């Protein structure tokens, strides 16, 4: 259970939330993404209240506005890198192969588009997940421990890439992590356990 005070993220802004295991990081992101529905309060995405929408409305709002990078990437195993990226588009902005290819190129996977996740390194899988999250030109990117499965060097590179690409696209970025090295790269970082009133009480 989490109880969050009001906070907002402007277009292009980047915020990191620090939280230990069990602090409610994933729950918070799932609430923002509309995967979970808050018991009370509001989650406003581009002016639309996620909490007042029925499930199908939340699905639509998420598909059109939010890119989600999971800790374990959650790539679909039977799909190639390109198909993973395009499938997300098919439920959102619509399939645009040229854009999918360009974004895969932007994350350095132009020569891996026909590879399936099992044929890619962990770092490459992470970049596919990033490309998929950005494929719908989202207004908000949620990143849940995106470097949890990477070594320190790759983690740093990945975070830089996420920040850079989000910055280029103008998407706001909300990243949660417990990794100090990751958090230190952000100008703005909050401690989730401090702002989560449930834990504090």
């Amino acid at each position, binding site marked *: 259970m989490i109880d969050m005070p009001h906070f907002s993220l402007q277009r292009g802004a980047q915020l990191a939330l620090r*939280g230990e*295991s069990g602090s409610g*990081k*994933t*729950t918070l992101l*799932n609430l923002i*993404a509309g*995967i*979970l529905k808050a018991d009370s309060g509001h989650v406003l995405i581009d002016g639309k209240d996620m909490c007042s929408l029925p*499930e*199908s409305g939340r*699905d*639509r709002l*998420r*598909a*059109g506005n939010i890119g*989600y990078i*999971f*800790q*374990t990437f*959650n*790539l*679909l195993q*039977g*799909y190639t890198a390109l*198909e993973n990226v*395009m*499938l*997300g*588009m*098919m*439920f*959102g*902005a*619509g*399939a645009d192969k040229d854009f999918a290819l360009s974004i895969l190129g932007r994350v350095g996977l132009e020569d891996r588009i026909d590879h399936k996740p099992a044929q890619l390194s962990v770092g490459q899988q992470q970049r596919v997940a990033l490309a*998929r999250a950005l494929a*719908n030109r989202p207004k908000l990117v949620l990143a*849940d*421990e995106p470097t*949890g499965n990477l070594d320190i060097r790759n983690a740093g590179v990945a975070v830089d890439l996420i920040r850079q690409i989000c910055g280029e696209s103008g998407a706001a970025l909300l990243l*949660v992590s*417990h990794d100090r090295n990751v958090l230190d790269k952000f100008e703005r970082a909050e401690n989730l356990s401090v702002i989560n009133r449930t834990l504090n009480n």
Partner: protein
Amino acid sequence: MNTKNVSGIFLIVRKSLAQHKLSTVVTVVSLALAAGLVMSVFSIRNETYDAFTGGPVGFDAVLGARGSQLQLVLNTVFHLETSPGNIPWDMYQSVKRNPNVALAVPYAVGDNYRGFRIVGTDGQLFTDLEYRKGEKFKVLPGGRFFDPLKREAVVGSFAADKTGLKAGSKFNPFHGLVFDERMRHAEEYTVVGVLEPTNTPSDRVIWIPIEEFYRMSGHVLRGTGETYEPAAGEEIPDKHKEVSAVMLKLKNPQSGFMLDQTINRQGKVATLAWPIGRVMAELFGKIGWVNNILTLVAYLVVVVAAGSILASIYNTMNERRREFAILRALGARRSTVFTAIVLESAGIAAIGTISGYLVYAAIMSVTAVIVRAETGVVLEVLRFQWVLVITPVVMILLGALAGVIPALKAYSTDVATNLAPMS
């Protein structure tokens, strides 16, 4: 559902079928067998019914010994079954003169050559009979029809093909309708012609002059009630002659009613099988229960096949829960996931049913060959049947229906729970 979602659904279906290749192939094969079997059962039923009740036989009625009309028709038209007995020659002459009769052809049966029936008849069969509207028997080049007073034979195309007989060949008939090497007649016949294929039961017959049939050693005539064996060179008095049946071409449908009245309702010595199609339809009526059982089996096979789709997809549901959760997290709605599973199920049914046409073609081809070999009746395997449309439609609908249960499971997948791990 918009077009963006549709392309996503098709991608999900395509990927799932590829990822579960083995179970997909096994299910498709079982569906193909089911569809092929169902289509074949109905088609064979319709085709055999039409071929045996409405196929070309050239005659309208058969006159034979008192007894079963069906036995009479099977024996004379389809060259199956045994003869119910003989009728005297003067009865043949009498019916031939009857004003209702356009053509009367005598048949005498009782011998075979290597299992193919030998039928004694006269030249009218070749000169006057149209076995199909506008078509008469023709011999292949180099042959001719038999001389009615010589030991000559004309061989049907299928019989010629199977026995190797050709113009110029000589053979000895065997007594009885079932081939037994010990029953060889001493008389030797010369084949003077092979008939062109007619795609009728006549293709299985060896035709000889009826006069020479009487003269075969061991053939005893009882036209007067007493036994008579013709001596060589002696003219056979008509009173001693008998025929197994007389094939009749009537002048019009009313003629059949009048003959039926005279022979079947008032007479006591002969049977008129008329119309031939009705007699054969009675046979199908009697064995209708066999068709009902086959139909029931076919339906059960379809149900089992639909069950196999359900089982094959349902078994993958647990391993696919995370996939559904990811799809939902990417923005796919519950209805999208539901539709994808139903479509996948219907897709498997569609592929299976289309493959079923190959099974159908194979079964029908083999059946047609067997039916032709056994009866001479040719089934039109390429003829359009509504069952060829109805079966795929029903099976695809059943496939979609079978997908509903696993689809409901996918529909109810909880996204947050299945997007492991939590942090």
